[in-house]
Structures are given as structure tokens and as C-alpha cells.
């Protein structure tokens, strides 16, 4: 499960992780639940239908499949799978019950989305082995992820007996097992780090397994500036002239103010790293890609994830 505050790049990290996990001869499934078609955009393909389809070969040689879950279709699938409804399923749709379940009662939507993922996790292939070696979900943002993942606990309490009760319990067993890990993506900024800390506390309180944090878009630290005190304007102007820049005088003030901002940022980032370290979780890092994340960039991130300890 990959979550993170809005704007931290959780979809990118989820996609890179799915690529990274695709070892030779293995299959991973990358699942999207927010209906934004973020996966299709990252992999530069047309919009994904509600269907598992192969979208890439990972750098390790394995296959990556992707699925954009549509809550309404997932509900009809479920009804079909568990209750063999046939015509009754269509009747439910006709009277608006499906609409109700997937939009007006959005808790049920979360039940369906988590249920579908757990189904993929537990599915067997024709050879009796697991259909997927790993399933990566681009989960809702940190602020909602605990409620999203724990929704089946709530459902098991509401529906005290019957098939929904059992299904909800089965999904919670998978989500709370040692085979699940919730990774939280953050930036080295105050609010995302604070939200990550809150998210970790909520996940732990709900008994959900926290994997680690992924610090995304890490900008290069320019050590020479951090280590050296900022030069006096005159010295800087002289050095810029030695470097062959003619407009040295006009550049000193902007360069010094940018230098001060850079030093401030490094200090803030150091504070945020300390905050993350206090969570006592593995921390992985991914760099800011200067030209944005295109397909080549995504593979680069996947290789960088593979190179780190998991």
C-alpha cells in the first residue's frame, strides 16, 4: 500500500515500486483506486479499462500488470462472484442501488476497493501458484488511508453476521498480516512530514502494518554552500569577475539571497529528517528528477528503489 499527502507523488512511487518488485519470472499488479487514470498517464498509455492488463516489463525482467478499479463494476463482480445474482444484479442497478452503494454510501466503495485488492492477493494462477507475486496499491492520501484500510473492521461491526461479515473479516486478515506493508510517501517539508507522523500513529493504532517512509523529490544538497559561510558581497563580485561574468555587480545580491534561502532550506530539511528518524521506520529516498517523471524517469526511480534495502 502506498499512501502519502497530496502532492508528494505517491502514484509515481507506487508505480516505481511495482516496477522494482517485478523480478525475472515474477508478476506484480499495480492497482489504482481513485479513478484518476494516473497510472495510464505515468506509463504513457491510453486510459486503463477495468481489466488487468500488462503495461510494462520491470528493470528486473518481470511483468507489471495494472488495474484501475471501478467501484461500480467491482460491486457487480462481487455480487456475481459471491451470490450468483445474474438478473437481480441488473435489477439493483436499475433502481439505483448500485449508485447508492458506490457513491452515496462511499464507505461501501472503500469496502469494494479493498476487497478487490485482497482478492487479487489471494488469487491462484492456473499452475496453483499465486497469480501475482506482489500487489501494489496506489492508496488514498495519508489523511484518509487508515479509515480506508480499516473500513472492513467497521463493516464487520455493522453487519454482525452473514456473508458480508465474513468477507470483511477476511479482508482485514489480509490487510493486517505480515505480508502487507503501508508505505508513506513524503517530502522534506513540514506539513507532509507532520501528516506522515500522524498517519503512522493512526495506522499503528488501527493495527495496520506500517512499512516505511519514502522521501520523494529529494533535491541535491550543494555542500560547498552549506559548508562555506556566505562570502562578503565585494569578495563575491570579485570572484564572479574572475569567473568571466561581466555583470558581477548585478548578480551578487540575487546570488546571496538565493544562497541564504538554500541554507534555510537545508536546515529545514535536516529538521524534517530528524522528525522522520523519530518514527523509527526504514526511510528510503528518491531524488527530484530535473525534467519531471516520464517513462524513462519512472524506470530510473524503480532502479533506485531496487538499490535500497527493503
Amino acid at each position: 500500500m502506498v499512501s502519502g499527502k497530496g502532492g508528494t507523488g505517491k502514484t509515481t512511487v507506487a508505480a516505481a515500486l511495482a516496477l522494482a518488485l517485478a523480478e525475472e519470472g515474477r508478476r506484480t499488479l499495480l492497482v489504482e483506486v481513485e479513478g484518476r487514470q494516473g497510472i495510464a498517464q505515468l506509463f504513457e498509455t491510453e486510459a486503463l479499462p477495468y481489466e488487468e492488463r500488462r503495461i510494462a516489463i520491470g528493470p528486473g525482467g518481470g511483468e507489471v500488470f495494472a488495474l484501475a478499479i471501478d467501484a461500480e463494476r467491482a460491486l457487480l463482480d462481487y455480487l456475481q462472484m459471491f451470490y450468483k445474482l445474474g438478473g437481480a444484479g441488473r435489477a439493483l442497478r436499475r433502481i439505483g442501488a448500485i449508485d447508492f452503494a458506490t457513491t452515496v454510501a462511499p464507505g461501501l466503495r472503500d469496502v469494494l476497493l479493498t476487497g478487490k485488492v485482497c482478492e487479487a492477493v489471494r488469487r491462484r494462477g492456473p499452475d496453483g501458484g499465486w497469480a501475482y507475486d506482489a500487489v501494489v496499491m496506489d492508496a488514498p492520501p495519508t489523511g484518509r488511508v487508515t479509515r480506508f484500510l480499516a473500513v472492513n473492521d467497521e463493516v464487520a461491526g455493522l453487519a454482525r453476521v452473514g456473508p458480508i461479515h465474513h468477507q470483511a473479516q477476511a479482508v482485514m486478515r489480509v490487510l493486517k498480516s505480515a505480508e502487507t506493508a503501508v508505505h508513506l510517501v513524503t517530502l522534506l517539508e513540514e506539513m507532509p512530514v507532520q501528516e506522515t507522523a500522524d498517519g503512522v500513529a493512526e495506522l499503528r493504532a488501527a493495527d495496520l502494518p506500517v512499512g516505511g517512509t519514502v522521501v520523494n523529490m529529494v533535491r541535491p544538497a550543494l555542500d560547498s554552500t552549506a559548508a562555506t559561510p556566505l562570502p562578503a558581497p565585494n569578495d563575491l563580485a570579485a570572484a564572479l569577475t574572475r569567473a568571466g561574468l561581466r555583470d558581477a555587480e548585478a548578480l551578487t545580491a540575487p546570488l546571496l539571497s538565493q544562497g541564504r534561502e538554500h541554507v534555510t532550506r537545508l536546515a529545514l530539511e535536516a529538521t524534517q529528517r530528524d522528525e522522520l528518524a523519530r518514527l523509527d521506520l526504514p526511510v528510503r529516498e528518491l531524488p527530484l528528477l530535473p525534467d519531471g517523471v516520464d517513462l524513462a524517469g519512472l524506470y530510473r526511480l524503480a532502479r533506485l528503489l531496487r538499490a535500497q534495502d527493503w
Partner: protein
Amino acid sequence: MRSPQEPLETDPLIDDPDTRIVVCCGSGGVGKTTTAAALGLRAAERGRRVVVLTIDPARRLAQSMGLTELDNVPRPVPGIDTTAGGELFAMMLDMKRTFDEIVEAHADPARARAILDNPFYQSLSAGFAGTQEYMAMEKLGQLAARDAWDLIVVDTPPSRSALDFLDAPQRLGSFLDGRFIRLLMAPAKAGGRAGRKVMSLGMAGLSLVTGTLGKVLGTALLRDVQTFVAAMDTMFGGFRTRADATYRLLQAPGTAFLVVAAPERDALREAAYFVERLAAERMPLAGLVLNRVHTSDGAHLGAERALAAAETLESRESASDADRAAAGLLRVHAERMRQLTREERTRARFTAVHPRVPVVEVPALPEDVHDLAGLRAIGDRLSQTDGAQPFG
């Protein structure tokens, strides 16, 4: 590369007594809440009676306004400059309490008790995703109806999609128009109009549907849902009328939408969707607030030349401390210039498609905002229509 767009002038917007509601929308993580708070503060210090409604569960507005907690009631924000005669209130939406209040206001005490004690209601109101959007609309409607403020600044929920905010009332409407709710209520409320509607489906259809629901939901849950829907029935009508009224309020001339984004691909894509959607709904878009834009006063020195100069200094035989420091600063500058170019490219894609949307840029600040002084600084930047041009 100066943008062809007209600037978004926020001061005339918030000073205009005809502006009654400003809605800040956009995807998560772009500084929506900060923008809403900064605009509210600025409007208040320029003489308006303002309430800022925030919905973000991270309670960031609370922090940035120096308040430890915001409950479901607007509270005066201390420390603002009231010399212009304005005032500032802030509140954070408490979803469950808003829902409870609606129930208490629109049902008799016994019925209200039955609803509030219903397990299905308790789960629904405690914040299944989606409830937030209804309650945000409801609260906005309440604040507007109280007529105690002359400007309401709204921060929209951190939805899975920013558009949910617009869709919620209509979804509720279509649900209430639907036959499903009547069917659900049929066993709890025999006869009457609903009963006849159910009959018209045919008895076979009815037993098929309720039988199926019982099988899927479990009879106990189905009973809870039915009790809940029956109990809510009386208030649903009023709920919907108000949601429709709020929707119309959003289309009214006194409302202005600000789409908030950062100069990043995803945020601007979401902003573009929003701009198109607002136009389709005939909702008044004031413009785009582009937060966290990087600028440089030394923009005439490009990234490549800065790097070349840095290398020259570093390769000098007897490089001095000043040389090394200057090289470091040149590298910082080169990185800044690359970022600027990236941001401009991203922004140009938006501009090409939406050339007529007015834009105001707010420069990236090295530190996060968490006090009134910081919000004032953001407000100043929001009102500058010429100072924030990185490519002047």
C-alpha cells in the same frame, strides 16, 4: 516569455462588497488552505467582516492562525488589525457535528434520538469519505443564511478528486429521486405513496430486490439501514432543498471561484479540469492562484552559463575561499534556473489551453507559513499583480 494572461487582481475582488463567497479549490498539497486563510485575513484587515471555513482534517488553518483547535462554530481570530473596521472569524468543519445538528434541527426529539443512535448513521456521519462534501455544502449554506458576515472564504475538502465538491449535492439529489430509497423504506413504512411505487415494480421484483439486499447486507444491517432511511425521510427533503439552494448560491454573481495550483504537472492538470468544469456548470471563475512559483532576480544568467562559471572558479590553480563559495552560489543559481524553466514549461501547457484565465503567482517561500505574519506576507504576494513575474 512574459505570459499573455491578464493578471488576477485579488484586492478588487475581496474589496468588492458584492463579493460574498470566495471558494478556493484545487488538488491536495498545493496550498489551498493557506491561500484561503491569507485571503480571509487580508480581506478582514481591509475592512470586511470575514469568516473562513476550512474543511481540512490536518487542522492546518488552525495552526497557521495560531489557534489550537477550531470547532464547528466560527471563532474570532485574535491578533488581527481591526483599524479598517473588519473582523475575522475562522472555523473548521466538524462533519459529524454538522450532520447531528441537521438531524436535531429537522426531526422531533424522539425521531432525532432514533437517528443519532442508529449504528448505520453513526458510521455514515463519522466520516465515510463523501459525507464531507455534503456537510461542507450544508455548512456553507448555513453560514450564508446567517448573514453575520459579508464575506465567506471556503477551503474545499481534500477530495479524491477536487470535483467531488461540486458533484455532492447533485448526487444526493439523484439518490433522493431514486426508487432505491423508497424500496429500502417500503418494509418499514407500508402503504402510502412509497408503497404504491413499490407495488408498481411488481411483487416478484420487490421480493427479489429486498431478498437480495438481505442476503448481501445481512438482515441486521438491512434493518439498521431501513430504520435509518425511514428516520431520515422527513429531513431528507429539506436537506436536498438546501443543497440545491447552496448549489445555486455557488452560481450566483456574488460567488467567485479561485482555482489553486502549484506549477507542477499533476496540480495544473487538475486545475485545468476544474476550470473546464466550472465553465460547464456556469460557476464564476475569478482566476488561477499559482502557488510556490520560483523566481530569481538574477534570471538573466542562465543555468548553463552559471555552471560554466562555477567550473571556471573551481578549476583555478589557487582557488580562494571566495572562489569556492561563489562557485557554490552559482550552482545554487543554476538549479534555481532549471526549476524556473521547468515551471514555465508546465505553466505554458496550461496557458495554451486556457489563455483567458487570469493568473496570480505567489513565489515559493523558503519556510512554511504558520502564523499571521506569514499569512499577511502571502496576502501581500496575492495582491501583487506585477511583482511576481519570474520572466520579466
